[in-house]
């Protein structure tokens, strides 16, 4: 069995500009949404208290809200979490309450008003400074990862490909975050981990295509740059699609069976894998082509001085 079986290379690069326009629109929409609407930062980043309480019977949310409002927590967000018996309560940071003991207090209040007993499933309190640091660390991790990739790909391949790879990775990360912003999904620590994993996945994909581009340049002597890139993408297309497919399959399993805590992670990666697959086919190679990659850049042995110059010019 085989999904694709092409006799001739498909002309992917014909859609180069269409892809670039599409990506630009998605990027602009993401950045606009992130800056206007903002990101629905989860507790890990904003600080505050989250309490997950397990009720013996399906929970009466209005009653829980009422109880909490009476006790002075009218700004608490109460919602179901996973099942109808699990309730998630979020209380934002407030100056007038001691957050560190809040979880125990709320549990006591809930227990007073429920004869059947409410069990504590999870209490998380995060101080404001921790969240701020986390945002910085997360941003830093992404930045360092991108720079590391930039250096490695420049060293192993060529600087134009390296720029293409990094642009396509940043593209994936920004658009995935943009989607979270547009849909108003909660961005917590597991989503951050997912985006970082996405960078790992997407670079993997991109390198496979690059590797083939390099090989095709050496093998096909009488073809244009565009044709060579088309050939490389076509011959790796099967692999690209199958790997994405198996990854998406397990992510769907994870989304439905991994539990509520993993939802954000699975959502981010499901979307990220799709966008990452698209970007490693279109964005990375298109950028490299526009930057003017040529056969000479890929032929062994590369003139060492010239490559050194290029690296310096970039950095």
């Amino acid at each position, binding site marked *: *069995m*085989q999904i694709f079986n092409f006799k001739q290379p498909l002309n992917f690069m014909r859609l180069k500009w269409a892809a670039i326009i599409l990506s630009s629109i998605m990027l602009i929409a993401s950045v606009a949404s992130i800056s206007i609407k903002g990101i629905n930062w989860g507790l890990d980043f904003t*600080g505050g208290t989250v309490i997950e309480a397990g009720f013996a019977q399906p929970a009466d949310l209005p009653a829980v809200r009422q109880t909490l409002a009476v006790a002075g927590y009218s700004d608490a967000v109460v919602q179901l979490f996973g099942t109808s018996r699990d309730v998630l309560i979020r209380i934002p940071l407030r*100056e*007038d309450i*001691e957050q*560190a*003991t809040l*979880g*125990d207090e709320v549990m006591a209040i809930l227990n007073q008003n429920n004869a059947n007993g409410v*069990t*504590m*499933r*999870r*209490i*998380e*309190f*995060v*101080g*404001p*400074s*921790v969240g701020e640091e986390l945002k910085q*660390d997360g941003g*830093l*991790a992404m930045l360092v*990862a991108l720079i*590391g*990739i930039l250096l*490695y790909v420049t060293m*192993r391949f060529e600087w134009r490909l390296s720029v293409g790879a990094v642009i396509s990775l940043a593209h994936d990360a920004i658009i995935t975050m943009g989607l979270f912003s547009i849909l108003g999904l909660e961005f917590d*620590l*597991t989503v*951050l*981990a997912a985006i*970082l*994993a996405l*960078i*790992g996945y997407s*670079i*993997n994909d991109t*390198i496979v295509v690059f*590797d083939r581009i390099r090989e095709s340049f050496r093998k096909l002597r009488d073809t244009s740059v565009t044709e060579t890139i088309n050939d490389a993408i076509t*011959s790796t297309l099967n*692999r690209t699609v*199958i*790997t994405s497919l*198996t*990854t998406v*399959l*397990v*992510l769907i*399993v*994870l989304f439905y*069976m*991994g*539990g509520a*805590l*993993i939802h954000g*992670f*699975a959502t981010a990666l499901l979307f990220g894998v799709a966008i990452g697959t698209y970007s490693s086919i279109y964005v990375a190679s298109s950028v490299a082509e526009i930057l003017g990659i040529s056969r000479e850049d890929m032929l062994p042995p590369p003139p060492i001085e010239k490559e050194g110059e290029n690296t310096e010019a970039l950095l």
Partner: protein
Amino acid sequence: MLNKNPLWRYLLVIGVLLLALVYALPNLYPEDPALNISATRGGVVSEQARAELERSFDQANISAKSVVLEEGQVLARFNTTEDQLQAREIAAEKLGANYVTALNLAPATPAWLNAIGASPMKLGLDLRGGVHFLMAVDMKAALNKNLNDMEETFRADLREDRVRYRNIQADLAKGYVTITMRSAEDVAAAQAALKKRDRELVFSPGAEEFSFNTSISELRLKEIQEYALEQNITIIRNRVNEIGVAEPIVQRQGADRIVVQLPGVQDTAKAKEILGATATLEFRLVDTDADLAAALEGRIPPGTELFYSRDGRPVLLEKKIMLTGEHITGASSSFDEYSRPQVSIKLDAKGGNKLSESTRTAIGRRMASVFIEYKPSEELDEKGNPILVKNQEVINDATIQARLGRDFRITGIDSPGEAQNLATLLRAGALLAPIQIIEERTIGPSLGKENIQLGTTAIMWGMVTVLIFMVIYYKAFGLVANLALVANLVLIVGVMSMIPGATLTLPGMAGIVLTVGMAVDANVLIFERIREELADGRSVQQAIHHGYDRAFATITDSNITTLLVALILFGIGTGPVKGFAVTLAIGILTSIFTAVVGTRLLVNLFWGGRRVQSLPI
């Protein structure tokens, strides 16, 4: 002929897989409810105590699976949780206050696996329940304390050298001590006198005439902060031990953070109370000569400070601290000859000498014990952290009857309960700098169990889906890839169990699921190559050979970059991100191994080195 493997390569792969399998095995065994009994303050449980415990369990009709003494601790395993709880009460009753009994889950790993050091993966708190605290140490307070000490030391030093000064004042906000002299010569003399005792002091000109600012070097500043953090970690560790938790974690994180993890703890309020009590004790001399009435009006004599006792009585104490709580090594509450509550205190050698020296000339004077507590207030600083309020009160003052040494008593305490409370706090040690909880995560045990179950089912079904897909798509070669996938999972679990620092968390489990999905990538790359080679008209053996060869370069390149990402995540990330990075990195390495080395062997075994017309791919 192509595609034949030497025997040693088979042996190598089989050996690696067997090793991983053996080390992965302990994860399959269930856990026994157990009791962990240890002696407080680093003591050791004797064999006699162990035998006694075993006897008392027998008497109460609790059948213990085993009661063993290991590394100075007793581990008793039981069949049921009821037995375990009942046994805890018996043990606590039998052994008394010098022992700590902690509930534990001990892996029921067979002896032969234990003997080779195989143990199950460590589970994160999100998988087994418990509390996680992140605490911040208030470095500013530690430095302020140091500045105040400097102020006092300078006074004494200059007096001793007979250098007359006009004023010595610590500026806490700016972080230096300002010394004002009468003339330029005095400035030089004072600086020389101070420099003689401490070469690392840094002087800078002061705002006023004949004044200079004195601060300590950056290096020393760092040392003080390091020391404060280390001291706090030690103390928190002691306090955690008092709570009685099996396998607690107290770790430093960054420059001023401490992570505390207490698996299995549910009563967070109590844990917080014990951990968060940032108290310290100081002993100071009472200044009885000074005019208390004037001091109350604001004219506090230099060298003294105004304090209040519990009942609101003002007391003037000397600024000089005779002794601080850090030297206390033991404290216990009891009753004196008149049945009044008292606290007996033991000091370390340095503290003993210090107190002995300072009480030598103070017999007949009154010595006050000051209890200092730091509590977070309602107000927040610019960073949004609650500002700590220093609460200090004189808990008692007594006349020094004789020169005090390493053992002494504090009397005049109101109730036995208070004496006990004070003793506990003193015993746990005094924190050099106050700490506050800036993050708390409590996971209930039922949620932990649920998380494990959800994670395991997700891994299983994810695996099954991929296995089915691969067989449909690649036929017999799909089976080969599937064997590699299963081997990959065994390897991940085995390696995770072998690495001492690796902890499995919920995101880590997600990482494993993701690896399962991504691990097929290497196989897909190879198989697609083989198909291409076949389509190009190469012979079967050539196709296998070139397929593996060509794919190998791509696999290494693409995986090294992913590994790079995983390592960066591990280096920068904390908590769940780190847990995820560990599984991702391990997964990448094992999947390269199984795909490149493992499947090659199988492919060669079935189709290599002989005449084959076509490949089932």
